[in-house]
């Protein structure tokens, strides 16, 4: 594919991302304060967001499977299976620590930068560095 085709083929994902980013900001999911409230059990907001998102996702997946819904191109929808390894525990705990400090998972980082908090670019670069260091030492870590 040439560059123009790559752009048009992926435009739909850009649009879904834009809507997603708007929801992130408008529901204050990107707010550091909301994440603090969640982990201090001072507000129901984030539990409601995550819980209802999982609920709607779950029902949607059931419907797709039950009625064998295909993609727009008529392909079979593929669900990739997650295989358990210790990374989900160690990595999960480490990400949780980072989430508690920055108040952001990877998605909200991009929206925080968009919302004008430009210093979060540094947080994003640090997250990219963290990903790189994981890739570099992957074989030495317990899995």
């Amino acid at each position, binding site marked *: 594919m040439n560059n123009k085709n790559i752009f048009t083929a992926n435009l739909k994902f850009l649009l879904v991302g834009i809507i997603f980013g708007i929801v992130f900001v408008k529901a204050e999911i*990107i707010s550091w304060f909301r994440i603090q409230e969640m982990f201090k059990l001072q507000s129901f907001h984030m539990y409601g967001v995550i819980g209802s998102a999982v609920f709607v996702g779950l029902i949607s997946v059931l419907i797709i499977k039950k009625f064998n819904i295909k993609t727009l191109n008529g392909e079979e929808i593929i669900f990739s299976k997650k295989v358990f390894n210790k990374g989900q525990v160690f990595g999960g705990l480490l990400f949780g620590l*980072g*989430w508690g*400090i920055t108040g952001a998972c990877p998605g909200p980082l991009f929206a925080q930068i968009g919302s004008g*908090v430009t210093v979060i670019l540094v947080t994003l670069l640090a*997250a990219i560095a*963290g*990903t790189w260091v994981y890739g570099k030492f992957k074989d030495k870590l317990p899995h």
Partner: protein
Amino acid sequence: MLEIISKPWPWYVAGPLIGLTVPVLLIIGNKSFGISSSLRHICASCIPSNIPFFNYEWKKEIWNLFFVLGIFIGGVIATFFLSNPNEMVIAPELVKELQTYGITNFEGLMPYQLFSWESLFTVRGFIMIVIGGFLVGFGTRYAGGCTSGHAIMGLSTLQWPSLVATICFMIGGFVMVNFILPFILKL
């Protein structure tokens, strides 16, 4: 209409919209919802450094980079065209506690006294902006996903490894916010 959109959206509007991303991505492109992979694709495209983990055809996953670019643009649109005219409502206990750490500015979605370029060059700011970010990137890749890939996509497809990951995310966050962060905020 614009007035309604400008107000903060309640969880029962935002949550289902986020949940709908799962079927939308599957139906428009057979893509599994996940955001932290974008960080891996950025490594693979910019700094692969002969590391096997970054040696794959990242161009096939480029949709993910379009998706996160969209999140950035959505952040711009929501902030500069649909922003909430009123101050954010924050739990009074949290406001009171943060004031004891010298955080007095509660304008905007982020505390600027912690997340700003001036703050970056303080010990407290450096830990929160740089070390925090590093943990997010390292941890999500080690865990094989983040809140979107595990908590939402993984739980929606009833995968128990994702439940383990999600529980660990929550434990990490609880420990940080309640037991470690108070010491960092005092710096």
